[in-house]
């Protein structure tokens, strides 16, 4: 059985190697996407309507002024404030995608903030989830506005409101990567860190479309018939395809990651990256099975594959970053394996996940993959070829 699956998979990989169109969508197109969006990532400056963003606040000042300030921030429509006990805990949360930003109030804030004639402008720190730069701008705006209000209250001089900037220094809090000597790097990441996980998922989607169509093609031509008569278990035919698809998906992930690394992407946890890659390969090869057996017509499978890929990608954040979605749609995204695939990759690449953090995403990927395999194999057994 294993030997026959391998014989089939090898044949499929050879066929794929001779199909320039599929190769383009699996390997070239995602690179273009990854690079293009990587370059554009800085440029997202629109202010879309978004759901409330969680801002973590670490208040080391704990003065009345700082408390008021935080309350005022919380009152703003776009921001929900959550307190954290230490800066480090806050960093972790942001990196793992559980909060949009981290705001730090240093001791002494209450004494000088908003006072025009203070000797030294007080310092605050702000960190923003790098994968959500556009929302980050909102957050930055909210902080500025809070300080503006503070100025208006404490130094009610006409004409001063707009000059909050001079009155407070907003410093970036380093989030992630540390340099060799242990000091946090200020700019934690390249735009490719964000764009490549989605690009990789696009490559994987190209993979499942290609292989699903190839199953339909084998059923439409007679090769599937011939394989069914051979003295091998019928399930081997599908599992051979699944193996070829999974191997191709793994190759796509590795290939794109290598290109990303050449451009400046950094892999924080190779081990988790391997787990994420395997999870993705399993999940999407399983979905491929399900997709491939919905119809025996090549065109029907191609059409359904396209629709499925676009939908999964759309609601999963492969097209529009999740941050730009209305809240309802973002809930929907939990159903898209693309979201979990991206999250797993991000976790390994820059979010600094540990194994426990990765488990939910990995679990969803494994579950969806298993459902796909089950559906595909059962469906194939139930119909005449």
């Amino acid at each position: 059985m294993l030997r026959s699956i391998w014989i089939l998979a090898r044949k499929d990989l050879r066929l794929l190697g001779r199909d320039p169109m599929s190769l383009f969508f699996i390997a070239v197109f995602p690179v273009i996407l990854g690079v293009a969006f990587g370059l554009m990532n800085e440029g997202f400056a629109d202010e879309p309507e978004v759901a409330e963003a969680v801002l973590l606040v670490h208040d080391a000042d704990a003065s009345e002024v700082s408390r008021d300030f935080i309350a005022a921030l919380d009152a703003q429509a776009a921001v929900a404030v959550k307190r954290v006990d230490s800066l480090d805990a806050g960093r972790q949360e942001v990196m793992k995608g559980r909060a949009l930003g981290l705001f730090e109030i240093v001791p002494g804030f209450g004494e000088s903030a908003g006072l025009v004639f203070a000797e030294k402008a007080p310092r605050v720190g702000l960190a923003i989830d790098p994968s959500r730069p556009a929302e980050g701008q909102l957050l930055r705006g909210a902080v500025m506005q809070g300080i503006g209000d503070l100025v208006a209250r404490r130094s009610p001089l006409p004409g001063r409101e707009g000059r909050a900037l001079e009155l407070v220094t907003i410093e970036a809090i380093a989030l992630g990567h540390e340099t060799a000597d242990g000091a946090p790097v200020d700019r934690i990441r390249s735009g490719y860190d964000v764009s490549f996980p989605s690009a990789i998922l696009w490559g994987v989607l190209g993979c499942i479309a290609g292989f699903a169509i190839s199953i339909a093609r084998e059923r439409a031509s007679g090769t599937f018939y011939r394989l069914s008569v051979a003295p091998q278990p019928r399930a081997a035919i599908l599992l051979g395809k699944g193996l070829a698809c999974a191997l191709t998906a793994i190759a796509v992930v590795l290939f794109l990651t290598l290109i990303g690394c050449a451009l400046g992407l950094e892999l924080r946890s190779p081990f988790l990256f391997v787990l994420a890659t395997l999870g993705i390969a399993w999940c999407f090869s399983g979905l491929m099975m399900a997709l491939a057996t919905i119809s025996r017509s090549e065109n029907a499978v191609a059409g359904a594959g396209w629709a499925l890929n676009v939908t999964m990608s759309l609601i999963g954040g492969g097209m529009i970053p999740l941050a730009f979605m209305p809240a309802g749609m973002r809930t929907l995204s939990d159903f898209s394996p693309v979201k979990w695939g991206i999250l797993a990759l991000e976790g390994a690449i820059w979010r600094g996940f540990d194994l426990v953090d990765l488990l939910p995403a990995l679990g969803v990927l494994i579950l969806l993959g298993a459902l796909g395999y089950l559906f595909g194999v059962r469906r194939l057994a139930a119909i005449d070829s």
Partner: protein
Amino acid sequence: MIRVQALRKSFGEVTAVAGLDLEVEEGEILGLLGPNGAGKSTTIGMMVGVVRPDSGSIDVGGLGPPSGPEARQLMGVAPQRLSLYEELSGIENLRFFARYQGVSPERLAERVAWALAFAGLEEKAGKRVRGYSGGMQRRLNLACAVIHEPRLLFLDEPTAGVDPQSRARLFDSIEELKATGVTIVYTTHHMEEAERLCDRVAIMDHGRILDLGRVADLIGRHGGASRVEARLAAAPPAAAVAPGPIEGDRLTFTSNRALEDLLALGQAGWQLADFKVTQPNLETVFMELTGRRLRD
């Protein structure tokens, strides 16, 4: 070698096979002869275990239904649709199907070389199948079916879409296989093929076998008389009784003793410019059994 009983299969409203009994002896070539839609391919599909019968039973070589692994070990099939990977070369197709159909690695090279020679494709072995002619593809389709040396071979219209030369080659190949003792089930709607290759022929229509037997026996049972067509060189002699209708200068009649009848006409003073005697064949048998021609 294979025994089929009361086999039925419908696709929705269409009854493709409507109660079919058949027994194929070891070493014979059995032909399934019938027009398009007669149910030949569906019957083969059920016999090889790819199409699930609605009812009825199939036993392959005493090993049970064709879905079992031992039974499948015995079988090879050349489907009606060309079942090849077009983007692989001929030799890659052969290697792949050989491996998948269980040829051991030690014998692989030998079997592939044999199959290439069998199909006459040595020179094109490394070229992609997409570029093969129809005849070459058919030959490869057959070679892939026999590369693992099956004892029971199903050939579903193995000559579809090939020129007479390629067809003759295929006939030779099939006879070569028969000589090695392979049992063959062969479908076609060409009566000449059935007459030339098959030991026994089953006439099929509408999912049923109308009759089954050796070609000569079938013709004896259903062929009826020979048909004679003569062109008259002059008007019939006065008072002569014509053995059949005359249209213009054409006289046609049927007879079991055509030569004697023609001689008798000459003696009676008929002047014939030309004549043609058509002996009954499977076409006539089919017409007799169904009231239709094999191919319209």
